[in-house]
Every structure is written in C-alpha cells, then in structure tokens.
C-alpha cells in the first residue's frame, strides 16, 4: 500500500514556516517515524513528570492513592528540614566530585591509549567495554564478594602482602569511595568509545604539521587533541555528571544506603521514600527539587564550558 493512497492528495503540497519550505509528504513521513518515540515519551516521561508534579503538593501515599489531600508547600518545606536529605546530598556531592574526574580521566586515557595501540586493539576495546554491558546488579554482587571483609579476594591479597584487612563496603569511611571506584570502572568503557570516535576524527595532518614544528607529544595532546575534542568532552562531561547525580543501583544492591547512611544518595533516597515508605507526595517533591538542581548544574556547566559554541 502506498502512503499516497491513505493520505489525501493535497497533503503533499509544499508549505513554508518562516523562510524554510517544507514538503508535506516528507513531513508526514517524518512525523510517523517519530510518533512511536513521541508516544512512548509522553507515556513514560512527560506523563509521570506531570503526575509527580501534582503529587508533590499532596499527602499521597502509595496505599491511599484514592484519598489524596492537597497540602500546599508542606512537602517542600519538610524537604528543607530533613536531615536525611542533607546527608544524601552530601554523599551525592562527594560521589559526583570523585567519580566524574576519575571516570572522565580513565575513559579519556584509555581512548588515547587505544588510539595509539595497534596490536590487540579490538580485544582491548571489548575488554574495556564489557563492564558496560554487564548488569549493574550483577557487577555489584561481584564486587560485594571481592570486597568482603573476611573472605574477599582483595582482603586476602592485602593480608598476603602484609597489610590489614579493610572494611570496604562495611566501613562507613570507605564504602562510598568503593562505590565511586566501582562506578568509574563500570562506566568508563562507554565514554572511552565516544572519545575514541572523536580522536579518530581529528585530521592527521594537524599532528604532522605539529611534528614538523617539533612539538612534543604532550604539546600535541594539549594544543591539538584536547581542543579538537572539546565538544565531545563537554558532552561526555555533562552526561557523566547527570549519570553520577542519578547514582542509585550500586548503593541499593551493595550497601542498602549504609553503613550508617554513608552511601545513601539522593536518587536512592527518593526511591526509598516513594516506594519503601510509600510517601509518594514527599518523594515527588524531593524528586522535583532534585531535578531542578541537576538541570541547573548541567546548564551552568554547559554555559561555563561553552559547549554550545563548539562545532
């Protein structure tokens, strides 16, 4: 069946919006292609955001969604007095501050390395990318066993080398940093591929010209490589930052937010409040505040780094 047969002939006229002229047939086709995505976005993104916005001003409880009372700004006021939010925000800030440079550096470093290595290149790409393909829950379980205090492989090695066993995930002073390391290990492979793609698009003649001018490798990296991949770096940094702000699964699986709240992050706290404690109204209010915070940080960073102006 031809598309013309189901659409009226006059649909294929041309029309203008501003200075741009459009073909109706192509526009309809484009809209049809985008429609499933739009429908899914409405159902699973915009509708939940809208519902969440409504619930944020109510006392909605998961078990009493048929009896919801408007409470005005009570949930927001409560959020500003909640010591658990302060703790979760602090943990999230530490996590973001640590994981972003670590993961960014690791992914860029690996990409630069792989861009130069000629032997086993495909194998190495796979090796570094495999953690990305594994389920977060699976890798979390794996690391829980590796980091176990009494019988974990890492503590066994530490003891063999003459060191003292470490608490790792059971030690409130170490648990969050363990999760930082595990998250960076798991996520770096993905950004590495993005960086690798950007590195391979840098014209070789730039490096040849720099070599003729006797620029060192480090000078080439600083003055050619980094400026050339700046838009990619901004993109990676912002997506990494947003991903870091959303950290939830690893603490949920590995520590349950403990020990002593040392790995309770904002996303996990929002989940816990809404799902475990069924306080949907309060959870929605925190989620909105947190979304606003992430958006502000992301936009601010984008402006700061000038990501918009780089082509």
């Amino acid at each position, binding site marked *: *069946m*031809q*598309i*013309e047969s189901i659409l009226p002939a006059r649909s294929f006229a041309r029309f203008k919006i501003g200075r741009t002229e459009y073909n109706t*047939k*192509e526009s*309809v*086709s484009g809209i*049809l*292609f985008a*429609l*499933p995505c739009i*429908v*899914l976005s409405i*159902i699973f993104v915009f509708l939940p955001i809208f519902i969440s916005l409504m619930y944020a001003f109510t*006392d909605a*409880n*998961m*078990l*009493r*969604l*048929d009896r919801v009372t408007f409470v005005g700004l009570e949930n927001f006021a409560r959020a500003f007095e909640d*010591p*658990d939010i302060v703790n979760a925000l602090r943990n999230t800030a530490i996590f973001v501050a640590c994981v972003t440079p670590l993961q960014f550096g690791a992914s860029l470093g690996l990409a630069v390395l792989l861009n130069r290595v000629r032997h086993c290149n495909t194998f190495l790409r796979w090796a570094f990318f495999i953690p990305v393909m594994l389920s977060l829950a699976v890798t979390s379980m794996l690391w*829980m*066993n590796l980091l*176990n*205090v*009494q*019988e*974990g492989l890492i503590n066994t090695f530490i*003891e063999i080398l003459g060191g*003292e*066993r470490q*608490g790792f995930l*059971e*030690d*409130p*002073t170490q648990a969050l940093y363990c999760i930082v390391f595990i998250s960076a290990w798991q996520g770096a492979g993905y950004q590495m591929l993005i960086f690798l793609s950007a590195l391979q698009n840098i014209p070789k003649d730039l490096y040849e010209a720099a070599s003729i001018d006797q620029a060192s490798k480090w000078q080439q990296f600083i003055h050619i490589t980094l400026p050339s991949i700046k838009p990619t770096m901004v993109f990676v940094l912002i997506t990494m930052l947003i991903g870091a702000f959303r950290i939830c699964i690893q603490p949920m699986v590995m520590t*349950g937010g*403990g*020990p*002593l*709240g040392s790995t309770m992050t904002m996303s996990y706290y929002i989940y*816990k409040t809404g799902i*475990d*404690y*069924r*306080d949907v*109204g*309060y959870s929605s209010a925190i989620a909105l505040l947190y979304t606003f915070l992430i958006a502000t940080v992301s936009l601010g960073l984008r402006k700061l780094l000038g990501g918009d102006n780089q082509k």
Partner: protein
Amino acid sequence: MANKSKSALLFLLGGLMSLASCGPTSGVGGGGASTSEPGPGGNKIITVWVHKNENEDEGKVYKQIQNNFNALGLKTASGATLRMSMSFYGSTLETKISGSLMTGGLPDIIAVDSSDVASKVYSEIIVPIEDALEEGVADSYVTSVTEAGTIDGHLYWLSGMEAPGGLYYNKTMLRAAGYTDADFGTLENRWTWDDVHEAQVRLKAAGQPYQIALNEGFGSDGYMYLYSSLVYNAGGDFGSDDHVEEALTSPEALAGMRDLEQFYETDGLASNETWFYNGTASNAFTAGTIPFQIHGPWDARVIEKGSSAIKGNYGIMPYPAHEGSDEFSSPCGSFGFAVTKDSSDVAAACQALAYLTGGEAGELMYNAIGTFPTNQAKLDSMADFQNGVMKDLKDYLVANDYTRPRQAKYPRLKDAYGEVLSYMRNMNIVSNYDLEAKVREEMRDVDNARA
C-alpha cells in the same frame, strides 16, 4: 518514499500493539479482580492475588491449594459452589494493589506480609474477619499469627506458614570446649546472650572456632525478623505509631539492644578478629565452620533433608534470653492473607481464607519451602515435629507470644531499627559511640514521618 512511509506505519502499529499487550500478569482463571455474583446453584468465584510467581515453589503450592480447594465443592450461604481463582503477581503485587486503588477492583483476598498488616488496615484496604470466620477457626492458629493479624482488637489477617528461629549450635565444637549435653539451653532453662558470649570465650581458649553468624545480611527486614526479640525479651516494646522514640529509649528496650554489643566488641581478640562471623559463606554453620548462628528454620531443613557435615551434631536452642528476664520472644513472621474492602461476600472470602491458611495448606508449604504450619493440630500431628530440632523449633513457635511490631510506619521503623543495630556493629569506627542518642535520633525521625 512510499516504502519509508510504509515502514513508518508498520513501526507505529507495532509500537502501539506492544503497548496494548502490556496488561496485568495473567493468572489462573484470568487476572480479573471482580467477584462474580453467584446465581442459584451457580459458582461463586473468590479472587486471590498472590505475591509469588507461579513458577516459584511457593507459587506452585498456592496453585495446588487453589486446585484442592476447588475440588472440595464447598458451598456458600446462598448455595453457590465456592471456587478460588488466583492471580500471581510476584514482586509487582504492591504496584498492582496501588493501581487498583485508583481504578477500583481489588480482589476478594490479597497476600500481605505480617509486618504490613497495620499499613493495610490504616489505609482501609483490608477488613476485619473475626465475625465472618467460622467458630473456632481463629483459635486453631498459633499465637504469633493471631497476634500479627490483630490490629486495635480486630482480626484482619491469617497465615498458614511461620518461620520460627533460634540459636543454632555445633555440639561437637562445644563439647570440645568442655560443655555437656545437659549444659545446652532449653525453653525451661534458656541461655542468655551472656552465656553465648561466654561459650565463645571458652571455645576460643580451647582452640575451637568461636564466631557466631548473626545473619544481619538480610537487611533491615532481617534485623527486625531476627532482632526485634532483643527488645521484647528484655521487657521492652516498640510502642505505637508516633511513639517509638519513647518506647525504644526505655531502659528495658535499650538493655535488650545492648545484649548484642558484646559480639561487636573486640576485647580479647587480635586486630583482625571478630566475635561475629563476617564472611560471605551463607552455609558457614551448616558446613561446620562456625559453632553458632541465629537463624530461621531453613538451615535446619537443609541439614535434615541433605547430607550436611554436622547432621546429628547440632542443635537449636531457644532465642537467647535477656539476663534476669523471663519474657520469651522468638523470630517469627511470614506472608499471609487478608480480605479486601472490595470483597462482595466477606463470609465466602473467609471460607477461602481459612482454607488458604489452614493445616493442609501449611503442610503443603512446609513440604515445599520449609516454613512451619501455623495450625496447632497440624503441628501436633505431623511426624517431622515430634522429635529433634524440628520439634524444638515447633515448641519455640508455640511458646512465642510476640510478633514483629505492628505499625503503619513499619517500613520506616524497620530501617531505623536496622540503622541502630548497624551503628552498634560499627561501634569501633564511629566517633563518640552513644547508643541511646542514636536510638533517639533514628526513632524521632520515625515519629515525625507521615504514616
């Protein structure tokens, strides 16, 4: 272009069809929630939502219970044949219930965890059943079940399975440290927590393994399951909604919690040693690696039904007592069932509920997953419970007068209590360790939270 458009249409249709197919999990007899009205001599369908997948062992048993019930040909008061229809939602049951509150159409019966009865009562999802149950039915259950199902003097919930726990001990190791069989604790002469720690010291001196698996790894649910008894056994309690700070900072409650402190202290140990087992092996006790563990009935079943190294050389003492107190609380609690507000025939639903949680169902469940029946007559008659560790566990179950806290804020309370016990576990790391201050801080948050 035409091909592109055709592809777009197909993709769109495919997407819409896949969305349309996202319905509820189909169950036996359909996932519908409504209760059919009985015609004269017709069928009256009692719908049940179960918290297990029908491929899991527990789910399979529920399916069998449904089939057995339907084969009985029971009649309702109006003469209709009573039938049961189950829908299996697994872990999504809670979501399904929440959704149904918006759209209407809860089933007649839903599965509810023992600790969640108060929330469901407070939310007016389930209704009292004591008047609709046949005479004597409620009395046939062990006390921990009727206690857990009773809120504000009304019975809302019943369960056909229980999970009694106690102190597992390795006889061979303890004998090597100089203990005789007469020294081991019984219901009449229980060991206290101090006795357990003293035994650890003697075991260590005798060159035996000495650690105890406290099994806190269950998370906060596990803390409450295994360690709410600390508070009860010392004469304390968990108070009521909005009053947990006052209850848990009482001298009795705090003294009960402090019973556990000695296992986290490091007196008499090298720097890399602990009194509690901190390894990854969930079978450390059943493999004969450690002499003690606090646990539910599952390991006893593993040992009895399998070929464990310690078979015949272990026992289960009652849950340790608090020094100077006669109170006896033992780990307990499990999933059960309740009749919902949307049931059009509570009496008929109660008939089904009584069968679903009765002796026969309890025995099926015991055979499949190892939980204990809650029907007293069944506990007295089943061969497995007439001697050995299973009899001991049965005795602890029958003697237990307590249940987990019954509060609408239970999810918050269990997390707060878990946090307190976790604080205790980290007593050597935290600065200015102060248990009472921690309890006060955590419980105040519970009191201030919305129910």
